[in-house]
């Protein structure tokens, strides 16, 4: 074994560790979920059939395989409840991500233009809210937005409104909560791309006749697109599956897919349908992920 092997072998093993992680903690559990999504509910423990019992022999396992069916997925497509939940999730994620981009980009841009010594400080300010539990922060918003909450008290004191306004349990409150919670995920990738941009590029643009605003749209923005893509995906994907924020801040008239899934699982105790919802959600989110993956690979190939 050469000296070089002594270094590359552990390195190669380390490179494989993420795959092992993925198999153990994603692929295997996903296999279980996928299997349950093909089963039927039963009043039993666990609440579905068929069960695979390796002790009963080959014939029993064959029978169990034959009992699997796509019925649950047919239900998802045929029942408006699920289709509407999916659509609402996509819509909420799209609107929230747009707001996040509109707010996050100027903040990230401002941070990247700060003097070098101030940039780490700004970075800390973005990250600090993470030090408090996510749930506590959402409950804090409930306190602020509720009927006799801080916001209404201030508005009443300033005589801007005469009666308390209903903030809580509205879509507005939900968007506020989502944007507030996900803002760092939008800012950080944007900041990373903007901060590493060579300031000489902007000087070159202005030297070649581009006024400051033109230089931004012709140079800064196109060069920040990888950061935009990263930020958008980092926000869009988890927001689609978001459960806590809509459950606590939004009204109960229309549900996001995460809430529907929770209801199926815990209220209806229908594990197979809940699993089918989860599998379909994953398939839905795989599309933007694969697009992003392809874009990144193209970028790497160019560099």
């Amino acid at each position, binding site marked *: 074994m050469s000296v070089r092997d002594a270094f590359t072998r552990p390195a190669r093993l380390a490179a494989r560790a993420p795959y092992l992680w993925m198999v153990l903690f994603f692929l295997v559990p996903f296999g279980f979920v996928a299997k349950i999504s093909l089963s039927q509910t039963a009043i039993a423990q666990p609440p579905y059939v068929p069960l695979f019992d390796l002790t009963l022999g080959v014939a029993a396992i064959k029978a169990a395989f034959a009992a699997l069916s796509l019925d649950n997925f047919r239900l998802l497509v045929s029942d408006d409840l699920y289709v509407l939940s999916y659509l609402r999730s996509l819509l909420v994620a799209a609107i929230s991500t747009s707001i996040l981009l509109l707010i996050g980009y100027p903040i990230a841009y401002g941070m990247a*233009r*700060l003097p070098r010594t101030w940039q780490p400080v700004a970075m800390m300010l973005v990250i600090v809210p993470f030090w408090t539990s996510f749930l506590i922060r959402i409950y804090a918003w409930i306190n602020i937005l509720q009927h006799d909450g801080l916001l209404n008290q201030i508005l009443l004191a300033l005589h801007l409104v005469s009666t308390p306004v209903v903030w809580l349990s509205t879509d507005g409150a939900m968007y506020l909560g989502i944007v507030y919670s996900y803002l760092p995920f939008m800012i950080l990738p944007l900041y990373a791309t903007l901060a590493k941009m060579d300031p*000489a590029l902007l000087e070159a643009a202005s*030297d070649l*006749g*581009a*006024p*400051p605003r033109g230089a931004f749209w012709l140079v800064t923005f196109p060069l920040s697109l990888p950061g935009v893509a990263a930020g958008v995906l980092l926000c869009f994907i988890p927001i689609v599956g978001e459960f806590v924020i809509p459950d606590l801040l939004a009204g109960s008239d229309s549900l996001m897919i995460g809430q529907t899934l929770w209801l199926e699982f815990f209220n209806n105790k229908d594990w197979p349908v809940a699993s089918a919802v989860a599998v379909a959600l994953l398939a839905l989110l795989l599309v933007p992920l694969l697009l992003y993956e392809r874009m990144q690979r193209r970028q790497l190939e160019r*560099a």
Partner: protein
Amino acid sequence: MGRAWQMAEELSNPEPQAGATADSALPEPDSEASAPPAKSEAEADLPQPELPAIAPEVPLLRIEGVVKTFGRFRAIDALSLDIRAGEFFALLGPSGCGKTTLLRMLAGFETPDEGRILLHGTDIAQMPPHLRPVNMMFQHYALFPHLNVRDNIAFGLRRIGMTPLELNARVAEMVALVKLDGLEKRKPDQLSGGQRQRVALARSLARRPQLLLLDEPLAALDKKLREGTQFELMALQRRLGTTFVIVTHDQEEAMTVADRIAVMDSGRLEQVATPRELYEAPRSRWVAEFVGDVNIFEGEIESREAGRLLVATKTAGTLAVAEPRRPNGKALVCVAIRPEKVKLSRRGPAVDDSHTHAINRLEGTVTDVSYLGGVTLYQVKLDGGALLRSSMANTARLDLDAYSAGQRVVAWFTPDDCVVLEP
């Protein structure tokens, strides 16, 4: 990052500062009243007509009493300089001397605190960069990584509303000018260093600027490529007739390409001269030592006779030197002599009665020999104590006259080869 931010601030505050008019006491160019008004962007690109309104003695660019400070650091200290149309002008100096700051003020990325910058008689000191008929080639090229070669070159042309036909023709012309044919579709990261340098040059020339600024344009190239590119730059400048101002810390590069060189130190001009003048007639000890290699002996003027000074030095005896054109009347002086003007021989030059007294003969021992190929550098310890450097061209392949360390030699040079400077 700070630079770009600062630039953005300057762009949004184009109102002139008080400093711009502080020097109004200076004589103004006669033609200033008839100077053309500030050009619109579209006009700035048209082929520049001869400007008959401007008298020939008015330079293309006049820098008048410009001051620039960064905090307490005075980067440019009351600097005045004229650059003529069609000149290849070099700003040369050690790092931190202010040459880049001066260039950035010409481009508009920095604004002078005081003084005026007149281009064709119009003060552009406070004009934002995107309105100036001046272009710059950046040190690391600053090519737009998301645009291909063609779009990089066309970037400046699209800003002035050229028709597609004109634009295509101009891009093709520029591509041919810098020999980039066939590479138009490549992105900057698919090009070699030399090719990138050409794209940057083509991009900066595409708008046909009245003044092209080059910030260390060849620093990123390796030595061989750099030398070839220097001659291409010169040929290009002669062909286009555009005024080039180049910033460089490489004196050989400045001497090679430039018609005139301004040597800068600590924000001030030390000397503005042709390369030959700079080397053979440096105005100060600092310039003599900065440009090329030099031997310097401090001494006192002993006597003056028939255009000759006799200078008594502590370590090299009495030297006969030519009287300077502008004697300063001081007794303490420096005598500077370039190493290649110092000849070595075993016995000294043949004694000719009429010239004997006029030739400096210094005896000593060779202490160091460095063979550099084209020349050999010798270090001689003079009997007077001084160290003297001499460089001799290796004009024959089998050089029988080579000296070796420890050998006794006579170093000699004529009074005309010496320059008298203030210590």
